[in-house]
């Protein structure tokens, strides 16, 4: 009987195992493999030495991390209060749905919509003219790039925070109030620490994709901001230098591991069950 259940569990593992092998392990292995080859398909470490010895790539890395940080920061600053507010509402699942709705639309379509809004004769400039400021250059600025990237990432930050708030036992809040804590103290000492895992999950979901954004950098940023994603796209499509593109990919994977470690659950020693 026990043997049978065990075999069944193994059967359930097959789809997951296949998925893992085909779509996680194999691609990562291929990227690492490719990164050791130059244009003439010779084995080499040159891609890595080029990357770490070139001011261009290092500057690009710093740029990417900096912009990803800014995007994550703004996303967080907007998402936490929003999630908190949504959570207080009566029909909160409905209001949450409205926030998630834009993610059903393709990112390219949203980018094109913003081009229309931000252009010289666009809505934003019409408004600025109406209130007397006069038309400004909005497109192709760093600010517009960060704005649109933040807009696109917000739902991915709100969701985990909202779920964390949902999981929060209201008894803790009541207890805190009963013990004489003010609203601010309750938030700082009880609510925020207990919803921190949600924030961390949100940071993971926002920071990594922001590092490798590439369509937005061209469409909205006018290639004023060059991220690692832009360089990968160029190496795979224009230069056909897959080795170098893969090397940048490996750097991104390492960055991802670092972020995951930093934002991972640091359980107290002994791992007491919660």
């Amino acid at each position, binding site marked *: 009987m026990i043997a049978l259940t065990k075999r069944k569990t193994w059967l359930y593992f097959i789809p997951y195992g296949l998925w893992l092998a085909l779509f996680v392990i194999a691609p990562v292995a291929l990227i690492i493999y490719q990164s050791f080859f130059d*244009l*003439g398909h010779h084995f080499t470490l040159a891609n890595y030495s080029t990357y770490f010895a070139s001011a*261009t790539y290092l*500057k*690009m890395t710093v740029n990417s991390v900096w912009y990803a940080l800014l995007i994550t920061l703004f996303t967080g600053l907007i998402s936490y209060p929003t999630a908190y507010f949504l959570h207080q509402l009566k029909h909160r699942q409905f209001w949450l749905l409205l926030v998630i709705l834009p993610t059903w639309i393709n990112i390219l379509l949203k980018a094109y919509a913003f*081009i229309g809004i931000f*252009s*010289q*004769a666009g809505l934003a400039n019409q408004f600025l003219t109406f209130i007397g400021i006069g038309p400004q*250059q909005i*497109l*192709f600025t760093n600010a517009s790039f960060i704005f649109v990237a933040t807009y696109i990432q917000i739902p991915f930050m709100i969701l985990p925070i909202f779920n964390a708030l949902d999981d929060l036992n209201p008894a803790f809040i009541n207890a805190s109030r009963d013990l004489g804590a003010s609203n601010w103290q309750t938030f700082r000492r009880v609510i925020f620490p207990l919803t921190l895992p949600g924030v961390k999950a949100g940071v993971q979901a926002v920071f990594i994709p922001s590092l490798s954004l590439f369509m937005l950098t*061209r*469409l909205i940023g*006018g*290639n*004023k901001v*060059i991220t690692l994603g832009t*360089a990968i796209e*160029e190496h795979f*499509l*224009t*230069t*056909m*230098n897959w080795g170098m593109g893969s090397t940048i990919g490996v750097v991104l994977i390492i960055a991802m591991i670092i972020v995951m470690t930093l934002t991972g659950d640091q359980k107290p020693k002994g791992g007491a069950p919660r």
Partner: protein
Amino acid sequence: MKRLLSLAIALIAICGLLAYSSQSLERSSGSTGSKVLNLYNWGDYIDPSLLTKFQKETGYHVNVETFDSNEAMYTKIQQGGTHYDLAVPSEYMVAKMKRAHLLRPLDKSKLTGWANYDQRFLNQSFDRDNRYSIPYFWGTLGIVYNDKYVKASEVQHWQDLWSPRWKKQIMLIDSARDIMGMALITLGKSMNTTNPQTLLAAQKKLDQLSPNVKAIVADEIKMYMIQDEAPLAVDWSGEAAEMLAGNSHLHYVVPREGSNLWFDNLVIPKTAQHTKAIYAFLNFMSQPDNAAQNATYIGYATPNQRAKERLPQAIRNDRQFYPDEQTLRHLQVYRDLSPTKVELYNDRYLEFKMHH
């Protein structure tokens, strides 16, 4: 659960029905029989009425499939599983496909229209003696300007773009070879140079252009220029033709000191199956009247001399798209450089983009 199941079944049934009816429709229009020709072309790059005319004259139905980049087309033909009879790569891609043995040589004895072509556009470096390719359209790289903000006399040469007057006014097409090429021409060098020192100098030259660059974008450039987003752009003549059609204030200049000369070409991929139809089509398209009609529809420059003579005078004498002899002599065709040399261009160009 039951509702979900019946919904799923209904969806599958509808899809099946649609697939069946589209197939039977295709069969009735004769597109899956043997009298067909599969053309793999850029989007909206042939006058559709010519396809109808071709079917009426020869009985062959043309199936058109489209691609949006040379690289995408290359990959699809290389992977196999496709049955394209004709494709339309740009000149550097012809050289690349030739090297990868993806092309079938032309049987010149079956071609009737060779005499119609302008000798200046044949026998180019990417395909000597035109063993594999027939030029379809040609064009240049140049400057698009909006006459509301810029006077024609202010942008006759590449160097004019460096004027401090155009602070944050210029849009560049995001293409390493073209933008580096523009800088090389301005420095009086060849667009095909592989000298690292010269390329570094070109990058330095581009860095000086940075304050004037508003954005480095791709196809969107057309939309931006038509909407008056910027007064100046560097782009290909083909894109310029579409811009000019969308905004009457726009004009196109090919600087006299030189520029790129590009070609789109008809080639027969290894995957071709309908030899008779292919040569019928190539001969049909090289007939002056048909080529002229196509050139009028697309708005690009035709390499077919007899066809050009049949174009309305306003088009034929338009210096924007048919530059004079003097300029034409200074145009350079890109040589197909080895990947390591292309890398040199890309590295310098990437550094320029980082700088800007």
